[in-house]
């Protein structure tokens, strides 16, 4: 699937991250913005809390499964304004790459066990790619050229976390 924006199409970036709330579980949010950071769509999941059997049987693979497969995949499938790439600051979400059809990159230094993949500088930060998806590099390099050198791509992720907190507060 082609993920790079066509030349006449404006770039859309997806910012995907998650938070954990005591007694409620994991909740993930995806914010799609244009290249200037202006929001186009925001989608978040309901909190997912594994039961005891799931905790026992998944063991240490539980959180990577929840964030990387269950929640990320759901959000990417549901979002109506489709982003061209996904950016995250959580290594577990970088692991969603085999399950979604979009290039995913994680802020460098936080890629965890998949940190041996390619790296690319976008704005003022370096991002690491999934080790098995080196071909994503091309898409990110193209996007890096479109963004300003001082673009702060961590900031939208902070917005997502704030919005998740606000949503959970409203749902409480």
């Amino acid at each position, binding site marked *: 699937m082609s993920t790079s924006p066509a030349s006449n199409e404006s770039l859309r970036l997806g910012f995907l991250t998650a938070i954990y709330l005591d007694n409620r579980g994991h909740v993930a949010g995806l914010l799609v913005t244009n290249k200037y*950071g202006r*929001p186009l769509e925001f989608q*978040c*999941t*309901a909190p997912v809390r594994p039961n005891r*059997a799931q905790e026992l049987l998944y063991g240490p693979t539980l959180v990577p499964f929840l964030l990387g497969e269950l929640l990320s995949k759901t959000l990417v499938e*549901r979002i109506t304004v489709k982003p061209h790439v996904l950016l995250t600051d959580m290594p577990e979400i970088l692991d969603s790459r085999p399950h979604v059809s979009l290039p995913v990159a994680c802020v460098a230094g936080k890629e965890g066990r998949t940190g041996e993949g390619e790296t690319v500088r976008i704005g003022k930060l370096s991002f690491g790619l999934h080790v098995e998806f080196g071909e994503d590099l091309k898409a990110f390099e193209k996007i890096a050229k479109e963004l300003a050198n001082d673009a702060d791509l961590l900031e939208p992720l902070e917005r997502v976390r704030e919005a998740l907190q606000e949503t959970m507060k*409203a749902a409480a």
Partner: protein
Amino acid sequence: MFDVSTHSAIKESQSGADLPHFKAVPLAFAADIFSSGLNGALRRWPSVEIQTLPLFDKRAGLIPSWRPHWAKVPTFAVVFPAGLELLPKSEDAVEAEQLEKIEPPKRVVSEADSAENGDQPQRKKATRLKPPSDAISLEDRLFYLLQPPLQTMLAGQELVMPFEPFPYQYEGIAWLFSQKCALLADEMGLGKTMQTITAIRLLLRAGHIRRVLMVCPKPLIPNWQREFKAWAEELPVTTLEGDGARRRMLWQMPQPILLANYELLVRDWAEMTDDEKPKFDLVVLDEAQRIKNRDSCTSEAARSIPRKRSWALTGTPIENRPEELHTLFEYMTVIPKGGTPDLRQMQRLSRDYVLRRTKDLVMKDLPPRINRDEILELTSAQRTAYSAAEDDGIVHLNELGDQISVQHVFELVLRLKQITNFDPLTGESAKYERLAADMEEISASGGKAILFSQWTKTIDWIKARLPAECGSLVYHGGVPHKQREPILKQFKEDPKAHILLMSYGTGAVGLNLQFAGYVFLYDRWWNPAIEDQAINRAHRIGVKSAVIVTKFICKDTIEERIDKVLNEKRELFRAVLGDGSDTNASLSMNASEIFGLFDLKARHGKGTKKIAPKATPEAA
């Protein structure tokens, strides 16, 4: 059973001399029957057959298998409205008007800061939008929370700005952006216009509003046009003008920004039926004190405009009484029609819906305003004329007895004030002599000054006398509107134009004359707020050096007494608007005080009737 190897080991150990003697008995003797009595035949391996048995009966119902199953995760979505498609920026637009670049504020880094942060570059402080207190739905709150910081939106990315706003301006823009009802009451000169335009620009971009009505006094229309061009040149601005048919068409056109003056609003509104009245997403009233009189046509027209958001701008939210805010709150739809909140409620409403900053609070690095009260002795001819007029006037007032009204006293005050400006018979003027001396120096040094007077007659009189070297220009209500902009342009650009003579009514509001380093108040207005507005034409953002403000006050005259009364009133309005509000809070003189100028007592009522003339732009 004891095996042979064990037996051998024990045997070997017997070599030790100290070990006790014992006799070894071999246990592996051949026998069919063990010593224990067991039959050797039992040593055969039993025949075992393996077969699978069900552990649980089917009836138990428990199947010990597990498959990973996760219920579908519900999601919640917010889709943001598409922003306004704006006109592409034309390439020759930039050279059409060179914008004056104004240096952004320089951050002063203390030694302590430097030591603490090492060589790390400072991360820019981000101004985030906050959901307004009245935003209840989650969608509304997320709309604000998910917007990028203002600095990201504005700093050289999507929205080009002529210069970087000050931090307090970012806060003002963010506040306006999220308020449906707002009164921006910053002191004059702090950039209310720029903050409003930028907030409108962002709201249009975000798709939150599509149609804006901006209402301002007629003389300020060119100012708003110019400011829109400077701060948001991509926004199409339509000015309401022309004959009735054209204006009707303009009212109905769905343009993003319609710029109208109060007079045309009142006139056209009266002629339109309710169905014909256009609806706006946002209505902004500039110089909103114009609607403070609840029963006036202007106030009623402004309050009846169908709208979703109501903003008001004024540097003097209270000119006379705190109650003047009632009408503004009613326009902002935060109190019911005809509502009269008490002081406590007003304070709460002010906290939620009024944003007021003063220069003292936010512009610590603005060059100072140096006030210079010039106490002048009247010339002999002026003194004679003044004394005669005052004596005759007081005799006349006393003769009126119970018939006396504030209007009678007021007329005398005006006559005396005019004499302090110049003696009508001889043309002598202590003020002019001082002005001429100051202007000689200012002209020689290439400086620029603005002078304010209450009377157009005085302005014309000064203009006729000032030497040609002063390059004097006149700007008052008698100057046709079409000529006003060229006059301001000439004053700014012509190095030979050194003084602009203005009336308070026409020149006090909305103009940007920060290149003038001197302000003369030739005579005093009745209300310090109007004087401050006049002074702030020059002492505002962009001013590069101190502004010297000279107030001419003639000794032992009515001017000295008026000055004393007005100065005593500047501290009275802190209660409603909080700290820093005293700079422009003001009272016009009331009847009691006017009578008191001549040691007369008010004959009617409690002396609270306001008698000062209205400071409308068309007054002079």
